[in-house]
């Protein structure tokens, strides 16, 4: 029994990462109809920045993270203004997606130049990522608890912004019907910039809390990005909570597959799942087919 709890917990710990990146991707897609292929690399850079300030500039751990988040927000603002904004006016899907691929490539190379290709350990205060508690036979890593807590807090903040603020209402309205939202006074540029920044902050948090788990290396968030993408597909790509649920589900499936099947199979699992889901429920597992029609 403890065995299963251990696997389930392991699944959750990876699932949180997929859920957060899935959420970041869905957010931008839902409101702006843009697939952000740079999401993973952007998240990785947040992790690098936090590490850089803490380890190489002796900044206190928490301050370094705050700085990294501020830089993430500012950097994303610049990226949105310089690359996304000019293309939105053309009103075409593909150019912007290709642009995000370009941004991904650029950022990946910048981070390679800056940090080199080697893996580094992201040190956390008290090395708590190396502390393991034993509760009976259940092994609990202290940093994993931090990961879970951070995920919970991040999801709560996003939930609050989306459901309780005027900005969130504007984002939802914009996601439902861009023109109608504009006709009600919702500014496209405001919604777009905040969606990108919020999404990048969610990604940044993920990049930072998972850095100690994954080791910092040039493309350490790529694998999370791919699985976050799968999470988003599982959730139908248009539902924030669907993306989160998809991430958690994928984490569990993966954990239990590793238990019962060869590792190689577990690596192929995301692709297999996407294939099956797209065949059976192209609109995702957690969203209903559009129940309404528009005249």
């Amino acid at each position, binding site marked *: 029994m403890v065995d299963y709890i251990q696997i389930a917990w392991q699944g959750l710990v990876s699932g949180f990462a997929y859920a957060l990146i899935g959420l970041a991707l869905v957010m931008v897609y839902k409101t702006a109809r843009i697939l952000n292929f740079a999401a993973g690399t952007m998240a990785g850079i947040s992790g690098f920045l936090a590490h850089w300030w803490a380890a190489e500039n002796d900044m206190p751990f928490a301050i370094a993270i705050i700085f990294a988040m501020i830089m993430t927000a500012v950097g994303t603002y610049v990226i949105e203004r310089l690359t996304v904004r000019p293309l939105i006016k053309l009103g075409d899907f593909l150019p912007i997606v290709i642009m995000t691929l370009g941004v991904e490539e650029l950022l990946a190379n910048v981070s390679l130049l800056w940090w080199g290709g080697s893996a580094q350990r992201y040190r956390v205060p008290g090395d708590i990522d190396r502390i393991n508690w034993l509760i009976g036979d259940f092994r609990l890593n202290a940093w994993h608890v931090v990961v879970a807590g951070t995920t919970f807090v991040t999801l709560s903040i996003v939930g609050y912004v989306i459901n309780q603020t005027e900005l969130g209402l504007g984002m939802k309205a914009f996601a439902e019907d861009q023109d109608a939202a504009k006709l009600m006074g*919702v500014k496209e540029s405001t919604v777009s910039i905040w969606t990108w920044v919020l999404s990048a902050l969610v990604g940044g948090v993920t990049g930072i809390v998972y850095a100690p788990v994954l080791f910092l290396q040039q493309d350490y968030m790529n694998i999370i990005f791919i699985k976050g993408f799968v999470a988003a597909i599982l959730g139908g790509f248009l539902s924030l909570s669907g993306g989160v649920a998809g991430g958690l589900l994928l984490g569990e499936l993966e954990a239990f597959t590793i238990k019962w099947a060869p590792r190689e199979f577990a690596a192929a699992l995301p692709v297999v799942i996407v294939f099956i889901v797209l065949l059976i429920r192209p609109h995702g597992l957690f969203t209903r087919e559009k*129940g*309404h029609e528009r*005249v």
Partner: protein
Amino acid sequence: MMTGLEITNLKVGYSRNEVIHGLDLKVNPGEKVALLGANGAGKSTVLRTISGLLTPTEGSITFNGEEIGGSNPANLVEMGVIQVPEGRRVFPGLNVEDNLKVANYGKSPDLLEEGLEAVYKKFPILQERRKQAAGLLSGGQQQMLSLSRAIIAKPKLLLIDEMSLGLAPLLVKDFYEQLADLFSEDVTLLLVEQNAGLALKYCSRFYVLRNGELVLESNSEDYKDNPTALQSAYLGVD
């Protein structure tokens, strides 16, 4: 300077495809004017341009003396240029009340309270359904919601696009009869319709658009009893 809406030599279209070929149109302050025409004549295109969703390639649009052609829709909303779009365009996944909240976007919550109260008094069914997704409302209820959003937005220039679309004739008649009651007397109105009979009853003047050009401009009085003449203006048969 209160000069109402003035459009001169407006040319606009989609990509390279010009749809409106030089339109002149005027709605005086407080006046109710209809813009009529058959399917594809370009009526919605005109409204979308006034609202800032499309940018004119040529010509000018002024509202109370200020040039508004090509302005940001949000700025126009702030000025009081409000459109009730064709097909109602409620936010289907948002509940009724959130739909109404969006109409108060960027304005004080006090105004929203006031607006909600007014709207719920006029359409009690919306209050009953206020927690229900707007996509689940009937067509008529969606039109109520769409009009209610405009009420909350406090229009100075109101643009209504084919309120009759997809609704039962009796219901449409109801809406037209209510219009005067829903919006203040001094709201300037440009109303797009295919159903000339209803529009003429409500508007004192009208324009007919065919293939992006004006083919008729007249007082409603002159045509009230002669719908066939209008019909030929629509279709271009003499």
